[in-house]
């Protein structure tokens, strides 16, 4: 699963337990009395069939409406019985200073820059790229509505090809100034003027010149595909385009659930960890 750390954010539980933490050999007290049990995820990664033709709206464009999970199973794959294969993508063409900065960041630094750790908006393209939870999309002619379970965030984009806001009226926004249009059956969402705190992926920082082009298509009833391009002349040497990511329609007709970032201890804990590591 691509964003492991994001799953470990929300809850803390206090129980009277026997902990086997840092005990890979199972050498906790009483270990000799225990029997082997196979621990594994509960979701077998069986891809959904195509499910039929692409549903279409009244204007003939693809209808993306539905609840979607990342991956091909139509289910949350956080607990998949198998690890997700990494996408095949070109290296990200960071400028030398940006590459040096990224290499200087510890894993803790990267986590501390994460919207999911700080409970701040993920923004664009983070709604798709920094979200391990379910999506609900509703489309109608001229409008794309995107809800995500992760902190119950939402975004609405006009898909009628209207121009961007005039340059002198732009202000930094987490989702940016967005416009969208169709190229055949692919929806193109174009975003500029994006707040520098908006997330791309895994500690990838960006400048105020970030330009994001997202592409969505629904090749069949059960599948949605997503790709994004990053242009950022202050950070990259050239534009970079991701691989296509597969999302699948909820196999069990699930709803999004309430999911809010509360009782968040992550920032304090990570800062303590950073202090501990730097003191060594």
């Amino acid at each position: 699963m691509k964003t492991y750390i994001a799953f470990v954010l929300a809850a803390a539980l206090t129980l009277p337990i026997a902990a086997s933490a840092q005990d890979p050999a199972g050498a906790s007290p009483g270990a000799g009395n225990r029997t082997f049990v196979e621990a594994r995820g509960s979701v077998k990664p069986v891809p959904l069939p195509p499910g039929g033709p692409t549903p279409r709206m009244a204007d003939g464009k693809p209808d993306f409406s539905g609840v979607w999970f990342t991956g091909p199973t139509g289910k949350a794959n956080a607990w998949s019985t198998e690890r997700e294969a990494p996408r095949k993508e070109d290296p990200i063409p960071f400028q030398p200073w940006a590459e040096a900065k990224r290499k200087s960041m510890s894993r803790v630094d990267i986590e501390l820059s994460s919207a999911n750790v700080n409970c701040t908006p993920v923004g664009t393209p983070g709604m798709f790229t920094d979200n391990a939870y379910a999506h609900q999309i509703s489309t109608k002619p001229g409008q794309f509505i995107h809800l995500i379970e992760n902190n119950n965030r939402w975004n609405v984009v006009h898909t009628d090809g209207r121009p961007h806001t005039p340059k002198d009226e732009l202000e930094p926004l987490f989702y940016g100034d967005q416009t969208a249009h169709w190229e055949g059956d692919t929806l193109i969402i174009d975003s500029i003027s994006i707040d520098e705190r908006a997330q791309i992926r895994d500690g990838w920082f960006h400048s105020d010149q970030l330009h994001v082009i997202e592409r969505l298509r629904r090749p069949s009833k059960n599948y949605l595909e997503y790709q994004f391009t990053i242009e950022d002349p202050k950070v990259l040497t050239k534009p970079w385009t991701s691989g296509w990511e597969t999302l699948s329609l909820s196999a069990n007709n699930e709803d999004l659930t309430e999911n809010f970032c509360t009782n968040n201890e992550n920032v304090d804990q990570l800062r303590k960890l950073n202090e501990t590591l730097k003191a060594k």
Partner: protein
Amino acid sequence: MVPKTFQLSSTSNLKRGGATLPVMNASLGKEVLVRGCASRNGEDNRYAASFIKLADGTVQRLGQDVEGVFGTKIWR
């Protein structure tokens, strides 16, 4: 008895994975076994949980598989 605090996944992930409130509540007051990693920031009795073996012997995943033992026999 020493209280120990475990960081878990979100409730929506737990529920979708099978660790629902009734499943977890069935082990309240009983001995369970949690596998995870101890905090590295110096705090005692604080962990990030990966799996829990409940009182009935069933195993539920709770968080990151930091050891990479997913799908292997890890309990004894």
